[in-house]
């Protein structure tokens, strides 16, 4: 009795061991399609000539065994099992012309195509990984030279910036003591000094413009200043009685000459 029981136990343990081998495999599988592809290899034929019917049987028995071992199969394994059972019945029964939908052969052909395509991709992946690879077989420059970035700065400003800048300065003028643009101004004092030195050499009527200091006649602004101060200085000298001044008509040139001193 005990022997028998022991024997029975040994058998079931061995079976369980064998089944557990499968359990490990199930874990290693990447879904039902992967299982089908693995199972198909036992047929040792071209995937295009594979017997889908035989494959369906193999898969169903695989699922049965898993069930017997109370392995929790993921839902997609069971869906595939149901679908294959349906496919099996389609393939076994004579085609019913009244039935709609694809025939068993069409479904089988598609499954064969899927398997072949997956196998093709696996082969392609293997070939890809076997290529001469950068960093393993083929090497890039070991000491890449850095491309230095030369920064070229361009400055920009808008017309508004310019106007605001100018306005800022003109506004600021209000808050600082006003300073003359001296080099554009010929003061009356300067003119007087200059005229005093010159009148001795003015015996005849001469245009006032001729007395403008050198370099002050080109720029209109400076000419204006020099003319005004020279004219004012002239009037001062006339007042002193040292000069005579005349203007023949309105806007005509103002002429002047030295007055003989009567002492």
């Amino acid at each position, binding site marked *: 009795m005990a022997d028998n029981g022991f024997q029975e136990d040994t058998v079931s343990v061995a079976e369980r061991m064998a089944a557990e081998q499968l359990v490990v495999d199930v874990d290693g599988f990447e879904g039902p399609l992967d299982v089908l592809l693995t199972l198909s290899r036992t047929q040792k034929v071209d995937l295009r000539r594979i017997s889908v019917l035989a494959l369906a049987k193999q898969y169903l028995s695989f699922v049965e065994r898993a069930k017997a071992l109370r392995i929790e199969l993921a839902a997609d394994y069971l869906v595939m099992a149901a679908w294959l059972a349906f496919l099996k019945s389609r393939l076994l029964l004579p085609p019913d012309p009244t039935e709609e939908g694809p025939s068993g052969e069409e479904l089988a052909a598609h499954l064969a195509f899927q398997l072949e395509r997956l196998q093709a*991709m696996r082969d*392609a*992946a293997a070939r*890809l990984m076997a290529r001469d690879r950068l*960093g393993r*077989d*083929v*090497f890039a420059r070991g000491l890449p030279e850095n*491309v230095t970035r030369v920064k070229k700065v361009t400055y920009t400003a808008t017309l508004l910036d310019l106007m605001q800048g100018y306005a800022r300065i003109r506004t600021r003028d209000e808050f600082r003591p006003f300073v003359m643009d001296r080099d554009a101004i010929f003061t009356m004092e300067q003119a007087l000094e200059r005229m005093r030195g010159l009148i001795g050499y003015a015996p005849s009527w001469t245009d006032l413009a001729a007395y403008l200091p050198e370099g002050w006649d080109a720029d209109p602004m400076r000419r204006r200043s020099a003319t005004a101060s020279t004219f004012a200085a002239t009037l001062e000298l006339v007042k002193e009685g040292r000069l005579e001044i005349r203007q023949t008509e309105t806007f005509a040139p103002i002429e002047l000459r030295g007055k003989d001193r009567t002492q």
Partner: protein
Amino acid sequence: MTEEAGKPREESLFEAPPMGEQERMVEAILFATAEPVTVRELEARMPHGCDAAEALVHLRKRYEGRGVHVVKVGDAWAMRTAADLGFLMQKETVETRKLSRAAIETLAIIAYHQPVTRAEIEEIRGVSVSRGTVDQLLEMEWIRFGRRKMTPGRPVTFVVTQGFLDHFGLENARDLPGLKELRAAGLLENRPPPGALGLGDEDDEDEGIDVDQSELFEE
């Protein structure tokens, strides 16, 4: 003023340097750079009027049979050691991260079927694609997002990158090993299962894929 410094020694009156010089320039640029450089980038760095494409033809010939080669990577160019001399370089070998089988298969499917959606990858592999797998490939810059498919939901597609081509020594995606044979055998098609929930636009989808596939073969 600073412009002068950047100018080549010949003060060209917009006359390109002789081809021999251009070849030297391309040589120097490719040599100095680890990453592939496009013809446009080359010309942007060379003096005005240079023909980098022609210089590359000469340069490539010059390096034929040498220990270093001029290789095309997508639309860019790079210099790489000859594959048969890899054994000399154990010191330089970088430990490439071990890719999972799922990642390798996903990569192959993207390379051969591009542009391909996640659903299509899953259809081919028969299992769902984990986020981690795609993320890893994206992170390695071997795949990137392609244009969206013109199918309902406008799903995003994946395509391989220049980095992928560079890593596997491919001039372009058309050079993938066995691509023509796979295509001829119809194994790059995305055949809908017979009697699939007729969505009516299956044909469109097929057409779209055919176009993409043929693009691969266009010269």
